[in-house]
């Protein structure tokens, strides 16, 4: 049986799937009482500031750039696709202005690190959220779809 045109398009859509569609929670240590808005979070994850609003040191952790959750987070919060994100840090590094945040490999590792380290801040899939960390903001999966609708899937 030959695929119909609609089936063919469906197959293509299944193979060319979006990196991730799930809510993303930005998480900090439970003792962290700072109120963090998107502007502050952007500055933290782009290396523009190194302290929380209360003056305590901040240590962002990120997922590997190739991971779907990292790509979605970078699109939603930083407004940078994978290539733009890499180019941004290339410019920052080789003009001596800083380095990208350290990388953790999964949500469990992030939670385990954050629960013992008050300066840490990172993001996880909201489904992985536990009481060991504190959620400061949640990005709905629809935000990613809105972004794609407005800007295209780069």
């Amino acid at each position, binding site marked *: 049986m030959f695929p119909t045109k609609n089936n063919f398009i469906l197959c293509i859509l299944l193979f060319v799937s979006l990196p991730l569609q799930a809510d993303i929670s930005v998480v900090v240590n439970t003792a962290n009482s700072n109120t963090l808005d998107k*502007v502050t979070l952007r500055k933290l994850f782009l290396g*523009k*500031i190194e302290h929380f609003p209360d003056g305590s040191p901040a*240590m962002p*952790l990120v997922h590997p*750039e*190739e991971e779907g959750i990292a790509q979605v987070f970078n699109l939603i919060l*930083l*407004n*940078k*696709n*994978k*290539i*733009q994100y*890499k*180019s941004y840090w*290339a*410019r920052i*590094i*080789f*003009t*001596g202005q800083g*380095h990208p945040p*350290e990388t*953790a*490999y999964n949500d*469990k*590792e992030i939670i*385990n*690190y954050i629960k*013992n*380290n008050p300066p*840490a801040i990172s993001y996880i899939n909201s489904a992985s959220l536990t009481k060991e960390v504190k959620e400061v903001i949640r990005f709905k999966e629809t935000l990613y779809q809105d972004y794609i609708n407005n*800007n*295209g899937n*780069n």
Partner: protein
Amino acid sequence: MRSLIHLPLPLCLLVIELALPTLATASEANNALESLETRVSKLEKKLETNNQRIITDGFFTAAYARSDDDSLTENWGGIGNKNDFGALSTFGIQMTFQINPDTKAVTQLIARGEEEWAIEAEWAYFSYSLADNLTLRMGRQKAPLYVLSEYYEVSYASPWLVAPDEVYGITGDSTYEGISLLYEIPSDTWETTVQGMWGNNSFKAVVLGDVSLNNLLSVNITSRTDTTTFRLGYAIVEGDFPAFSQALPIIPNTPINIGDRLFFARNEHTDIDYLSAGFVFDNGRWLVMSELVQLTVAGWFTDIDGGYVMTGHRFGKLLPHLTYSRMINADPGARASGRIVSSATGLPLPLPDSTVGAIADHFLKQEQSTYTLGLRYELAHGMSAKAEWSHITDLGNTIGQFRASAPPTKDRVNIIKFGIDSVF
């Protein structure tokens, strides 16, 4: 185990078979937990030592280039009419020593194929954070003359293998020893940086030889949003240039013979001004870049107005782009101060200043336009492949951005470039 003894053998085997996966799962879970704990422990140690560690970063470009003109060599990269794997190839390594949270030392070593892979320290400075938004740098650093000046060699961070010659090829070496101050103006929408610099530079120029540039005073302001960058820059510097001597061919209707030389005396304390304006728009799909620069040099040097406009569109990993760049001579010709010295007598030929000026114009005026069609493809994470075709024309009987023993006889040169670049 004791209770199993009393069970029939088939039932015992069934119980063991059912228990084994459970035991295996528990064992795997323990292993996974240990692995996670080990990784978290490593991560903690890594982050704890974050402030004291040495960070190493690097970049490279491996490229091939060739032009279709066998009488000219491209000035900046040295591209000629031969298979050239060195002209645009570069390897760089940067080491950042975080001395304490406010102080770091940064060294960037670069080896270029064009310079026989000799290693040169392009950056070597101390950086000290005076306040949250104010940073002081002392040492060897790139002067921020244009948008890409500070990371010109990091080809991965730009759409081209080589940025337009009509802007980036007119300044010479922009590495200075000096002091700079960077101030970031706090804002929630525009990220604005003001940078001032004072310093000196000396280098060996391709045609002129040993050049000293002293007391550079540079200031620029760069404002960025997620998608848009605006930049304005101004710099003044005092140049000391050696005497200039150029062998001439036979020039009809003049007493000039082959071997006679065009000569300009040493130029000291020559004022040089750089003025620039830049614009970048990048929304993830469309990329538009443009810069306008003005180089003004006192004396017989040619003043140049240059600029480019490029546009590209990303289709996933592909970025096709088109660039038009143009440089024009911007002075009326102050080159009558030269002399043409006879190779036979060693004395200046009795020529009117206007004739000397007109002949000198052929070798020193620089005009050209370049149309570049390029394609960038993201090969892998942090690695891109690039292909470019540049059509250079509108030389207007000038030498353009080429080295040659005589002005070019035709008005078009094509250069093809292929390369792979990466950051790591």
